[in-house]
């Protein structure tokens, strides 16, 4: 490991230790913001793990997020909490593998539309099941977990997600995914198993999203499909990752912070125009920073250096 990587690790460790201490100082409102930011940072980082290199824009984030939350809603009365989380991860993995095998052949706009449709399908299936079989649409989640416990769990999940992202980027499977993203024909002719590579990384990213939903479920106390399968969550995740830059380790995280705060403020102050502003922002970010803000800053910095040293 190089000196710079080592330094980065120590800095990240210190930052996480500092963040973990936040509940001892912060009041309930700031802690709520920290939970929201960590939740979206996890989603955006996990999203970029698969969608960054492949450029497959997935809108299925909330499908996995909601499955995680619902698994907790269904099982939290009967199973101990760690097992509930494990079950949620299992559900996410199973759905991701089945969906991955069925859809990762699709490319471009077909994939986008499919993932969006998948979310709606899962939401409708859950609704149908709850209405017709269990005869209760909403569910209560009563778990003895305070906001600080949820926050710590999310922070741990965020640390794991960042580490996984970093490891994938340096590993053979990460290179395979980048080759696939650039040119599938070359990937196939280089001996890369395209389907296996895509499914494994899609599933890893989906399991993390599922856990993010499962961990946050106790916060709502009451969950129903229209809350936990809200497509806005998918859209926000995409914008955050794109703003920061999906091909940089800390890009999605840095995109999540300002956008989450902005959306909080917007939904509190302009609840009626919220989605219009969201749409305009979405378009603006895609037009202005196609590679993300971090990539743009790097480009400007290199240009500056070049001009400084004629």
């Amino acid at each position: 490991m190089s000196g710079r990587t080592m330094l980065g690790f120590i800095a990240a460790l210190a930052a996480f230790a500092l963040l973990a201490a936040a509940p001892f100082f912060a009041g309930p409102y700031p802690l709520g913001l920290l939970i929201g930011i960590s939740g979206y940072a996890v989603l955006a980082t996990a999203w970029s793990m698969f969608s960054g290199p492949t450029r497959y824009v997935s809108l299925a984030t909330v499908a996995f997020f909601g499955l995680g939350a619902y698994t907790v809603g269904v099982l939290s009365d009967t199973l101990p909490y760690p097992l509930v989380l494990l079950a949620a991860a299992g559900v996410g993995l199973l759905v991701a593998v089945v969906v991955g095998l069925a859809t990762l052949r699709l490319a471009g706009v077909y994939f986008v539309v499919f993932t969006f449709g998948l979310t709606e399908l899962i939401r409708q299936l859950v609704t149908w099941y709850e209405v017709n079989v269990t005869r209760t649409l909403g569910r209560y989640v009563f778990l003895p977990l305070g906001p600080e416990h949820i926050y710590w769990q999310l922070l741990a999940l965020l640390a794991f997600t960042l580490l996984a992202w970093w490891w994938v980027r340096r590993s053979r499977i990460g290179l395979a995914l980048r080759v696939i993203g650039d040119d599938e024909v070359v990937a196939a002719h280089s001996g890369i198993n395209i389907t296996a590579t895509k499914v494994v990384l899609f599933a890893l990213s989906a399991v993390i999203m599922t856990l993010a939903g499962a961990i946050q479920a106790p916060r709502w106390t009451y969950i129903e499909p229209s809350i936990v399968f809200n497509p806005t969550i998918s859209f926000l995740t995409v914008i955050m990752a794109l703003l920061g830059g999906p091909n940089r380790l800390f890009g999605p995280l840095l995109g999540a912070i300002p956008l989450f705060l902005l959306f909080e403020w917007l939904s509190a102050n302009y609840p009626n125009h919220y989605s219009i502003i969201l749409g305009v922002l979405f378009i603006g970010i895609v037009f202005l920073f196609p590679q993300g803000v971090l990539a743009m800053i790097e480009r400007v910095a290199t240009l500056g250096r070049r001009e400084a040293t004629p």
Partner: protein
Amino acid sequence: MSALLSITGLHKRFGGLVAVNDLSFALAEGEIVGLLGPNGSGKTTALNMISGFLRPNAGSILLDGEAIGGLPPARISHKGVARTFQLVRALPSLSVAENVVAALAFRREPLWGATATTEAARLLSRVGLAGRENQSAASLTYIDLKRMELARALAADPKLLLLDEWLAGLNPTELRQGIDLIASLRTGGITILLVEHVMDAVRALCDRCIVMNAGVKIADGHTQDVLQAPEVVRAYLGDADA
């Protein structure tokens, strides 16, 4: 000498068009063979079936006696077939070295880490790209992209190398270097099938030539004899009576 590649009765249809019709030929180990023919005669389609990009409708392809026809390209690449593409296919978001490591890391006996980096540098210097490892592949000129693509094909450690107009578009100096480079591969034990329109290169490199026209093989033999055969001249220049 035993046949490294042996093709019998190969067929490929695209709708009503028969692109390759009952093609049969064999390559001996260590041979450099030219696959010639006018545009649209089925040369690239034949190459695409050998590399697994297309599935044949009928016929068999044997590599070292093992059937590879219709296998997916990744499997065929592991059996020892590598290729370059008529229109260069680079991986633009990767560095030049990573483009080569992409093949080293997923071949049958994969290389990774420092070994892969060293081997990539060796292959790149062999094709004339020494010292360019860390450059972005998107910044290379067309000719350098072709060189990089050849290094990537060699990285797969192939028994059979398929070159699809690899020498097209080179200037005379580059052509000279290119011909020497390909000739040097034979000494390394690689069998080469090349689709080529540059006749100087075909004469300099190929012991044997196969000529196709409208999907059918019309000649197969020593380069000099084949290039003078009346049916070959007719395919290229048209019929005197027409």
